[in-house]
């Protein structure tokens, strides 16, 4: 009886199996339809090129940003901006807010007025040009030019170890007055490459408080934009580029920042799911002045009044969208916290 019953049920089982297979194939094909577009990155090598920011007029896209995007601008008289800053400077710090990641992300996008820049980011063409290459102690250093339709051209330094693929990668964001070379030397860039990470460090433009940063920040804030939005967007371009590299394991991208670079990373990690671990040494309250009187630079990249209500929420670990290590502010480099940083990234990016 049990044998007969078993024989009779076999065709039903086969039929059921067939349906499961059909459902899986159909599911796969619909997944394919919805699959994200691969990042639109063109990588070329042209060792005949050089990068001189002034010669290339690389600040021009910042200077013309308000005029180039009038449909997203919110122009305000400078006096109104200053009055708003004066008002929030007199306020006590706000309480920590309990927000979902989606709510936090929406508030950041709104405060930075960056939504239109994020839309179609992966599909927007990004050209990356290797214009210099050298090799030392098993690490290849490449200087890169990033060229994007919204923010123009900027330079980055990539340190690539010779370890076998796939590699974890780390984006290293410098602070004011610094360079990728300084980040490599004092902020663990070279050490991380030696430890087996591909390290990518941009040269942020207009990050010296006086002159261009002051002038551009005033113009952007008056127009309803923020220099910090440019830095965050450029950080996401770095991540997009890393995701396009066959050598990089896109699930194992970390980010390490110092000072203004930490402020940038603290926002960027909320706007992408592509960063898996973060080390930060600073949380600004977003009403910062680069240098107060007597020099009197009332705004700079870390002046984003719309983020002030979130200023105590960001340092709260409950708000972190990813594994995060907060270390003391590193006035003179990360040497003192090198072991903790290397251990943290090893735990989250290499195991």
């Amino acid at each position: 009886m049990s044998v007969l019953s078993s024989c009779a049920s076999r065709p039903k089982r086969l039929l059921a199996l067939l349906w499961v297979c059909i459902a899986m194939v159909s599911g796969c094909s619909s997944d394919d339809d919805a699959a994200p577009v691969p990042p639109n990155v063109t990588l070329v090598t042209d060792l005949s090129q050089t990068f001189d920011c002034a010669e290339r007029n690389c600040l021009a896209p910042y200077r013309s940003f308000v005029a180039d995007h009038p449909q997203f601008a919110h122009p305000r008289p400078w006096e109104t901006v200053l009055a708003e800053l004066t008002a929030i400077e007199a306020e006590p710090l706000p309480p920590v807010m309990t927000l979902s990641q989606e709510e936090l992300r929406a508030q950041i996008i709104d405060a930075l007025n960056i939504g239109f820049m994020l839309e179609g980011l992966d599909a927007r063409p990004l050209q990356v040009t290797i214009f210099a290459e050298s090799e030392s102690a098993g690490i290849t250093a490449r200087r890169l030019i990033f060229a994007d339709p919204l923010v123009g051209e900027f330079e980055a330094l990539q340190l690539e170890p010779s370890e076998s693929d796939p590699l974890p990668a780390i984006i290293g964001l410098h602070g004011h007055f610094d360079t990728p070379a300084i980040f490599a030397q004092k902020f663990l860039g070279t050490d991380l490459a030696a430890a087996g990470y591909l390290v990518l460090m941009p040269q942020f433009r207009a990050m010296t408080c006086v002159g261009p940063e002051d002038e551009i920040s005033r113009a952007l804030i008056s127009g309803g934009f923020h220099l910090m939005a440019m830095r965050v967007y450029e950080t996401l371009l770095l991540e997009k580029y890393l995701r396009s590299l066959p050598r990089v394991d896109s699930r194992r991208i970390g980010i390490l920042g110092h000072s203004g670079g930490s402020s940038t990373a603290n926002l960027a990690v909320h706007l992408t799911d592509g960063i898996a671990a973060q080390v930060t040494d600073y949380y600004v309250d977003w009403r910062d002045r680069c240098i107060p009187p007597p020099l009197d630079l009332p705004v700079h990249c870390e002046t984003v009044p719309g983020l002030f209500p979130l200023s105590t929420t960001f340092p709260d670990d409950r708000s972190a969208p990813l594994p995060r290590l907060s270390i003391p502010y590193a006035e003179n480099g990360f040497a003192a916290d090198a072991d903790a940083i290397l251990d943290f990234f090893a735990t989250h990016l290499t195991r």
Partner: protein
Amino acid sequence: MPCAVIKCSSICNHGVMQGLLAYAIMRGMNARDDYAALHVRAARLLRRLQRLDLDKMPGGLRARLLAQRADLEALVEATDPTGEPLLKSLFRALDRPLPVEELWAWLSWSVRAIREPAKVN
């Protein structure tokens, strides 16, 4: 003067030290470990000032910035959380915001103590 009525706009005009004090007071930095936040803020400002090319500044402004830089160096040292910060005991001892004059007096004493320890008890 009760600290609650102190406005940054009126204090900042008197220089960075007062601005930092306003920052400290307005944020209730009388709690046990909050001097570290003041230290970080001063250290960030100091690092930026150290990187500025002051030789390119007009004479009067350069002199004021040099004085500010010296004040910040002292403040950073006074609040260094890795050392024996002179302000540590102050911040720990307080359980309420101080009038700015009183806090300024403490800070001035700390700065003098660093610069001229022999002259300060």
